[in-house]
């Protein structure tokens, strides 16, 4: 059984999140993962709307959210405030944090384990 917590990724680049998604689909095919990357036009940047969409499209009510740079976090926070969902924004290294979380969620690991692993990846 897989955890009922989903993963949301927000990046400045559509390619970065697509690539991370490809990477973690291999280790966590059963985890609900959604993402937003780039501006609405596909340029480098973030867009509040696509972040909101990634949050709402995720099939889970509880979400762990990851971002690459600070301005992505601000959009995440705004979207989180406006959403009904329970969203935890994690200030961990982006790729490594998502990868580790996805692998552990797939295994339905204890939340305390996931959190203690993530604590070691706090770099922001």
């Amino acid at each position, binding site marked *: 059984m897989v955890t009922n917590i989903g993963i949301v990724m927000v990046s400045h680049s559509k390619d970065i999140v697509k690539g991370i998604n490809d990477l973690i689909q291999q280790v966590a095919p059963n985890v609900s993962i959604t993402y937003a990357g780039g501006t609405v036009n596909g340029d480098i940047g973030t*867009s509040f709307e696509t972040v909101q969409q990634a949050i709402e499209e995720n099939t889970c009510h509880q979400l762990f959210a990851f971002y690459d740079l600070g301005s992505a976090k601000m959009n995440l926070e705004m979207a989180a405030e406006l959403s009904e969902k329970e969203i935890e924004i994690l200030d961990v290294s982006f790729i490594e944090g998502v990868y580790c979380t996805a692998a552990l969620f797939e295994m339905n690991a204890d939340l305390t384990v996931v959190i203690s692993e993530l604590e070691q990846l706090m770099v922001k």
Partner: protein
Amino acid sequence: MIVTKDLTHKWFTLFAEKVIQEKEQLSEYDRIIGDGDHGMNMARGAQQLITLWQAVPPVHLSDVFKQAAMKWISGVGGASGPLYGTAFLEMAKAVGAKEELSNDELVTAVKAGFEGIKKRGKSDIGQKTMLDLWAPAVQDLEKDELTMATLQTALTKTNELKATKGRASFLGDRSINEVDPGAASSKLFFEALIEAGEFGGN
């Protein structure tokens, strides 16, 4: 000074026009200590706001703030989007259903915007951000004035700071003596208020 919907509309329209006019310069500042997109980001929001108001001008005083907030939040793909967006939203909330603001009420609104940026950015004055323009502007407004000299001095002082928030913080000491793009665009915001309003009166 009495702040009406028309004055506020003028204020934000002037701001948007200034941003579009200074787009290249703002991006150039950002090229030095950031990623070079601040002008483009801000001009995107500004253009959308102008386009909206050409079609449907704001009806209520709070519409000006709300509509600007929406355009910045959804149209601007950088840190400045949520930051200005939150500021304008908090200003709209402070204004509420009022259709006119006394000077005190204007101060309250601008302070709410300032607090919104702090909250959204987890930042404070002294970190070489837009906040370092907002703080002296609030101080001036509290005395029912706002001068270009205050804004110019604030920007000069901000240049001397070391960035500890946002992208520029990656540069550490290297950010000293460079212009913070967000401070520069906030200077335009308050310049627009000076031009739209009349200070020193009552």
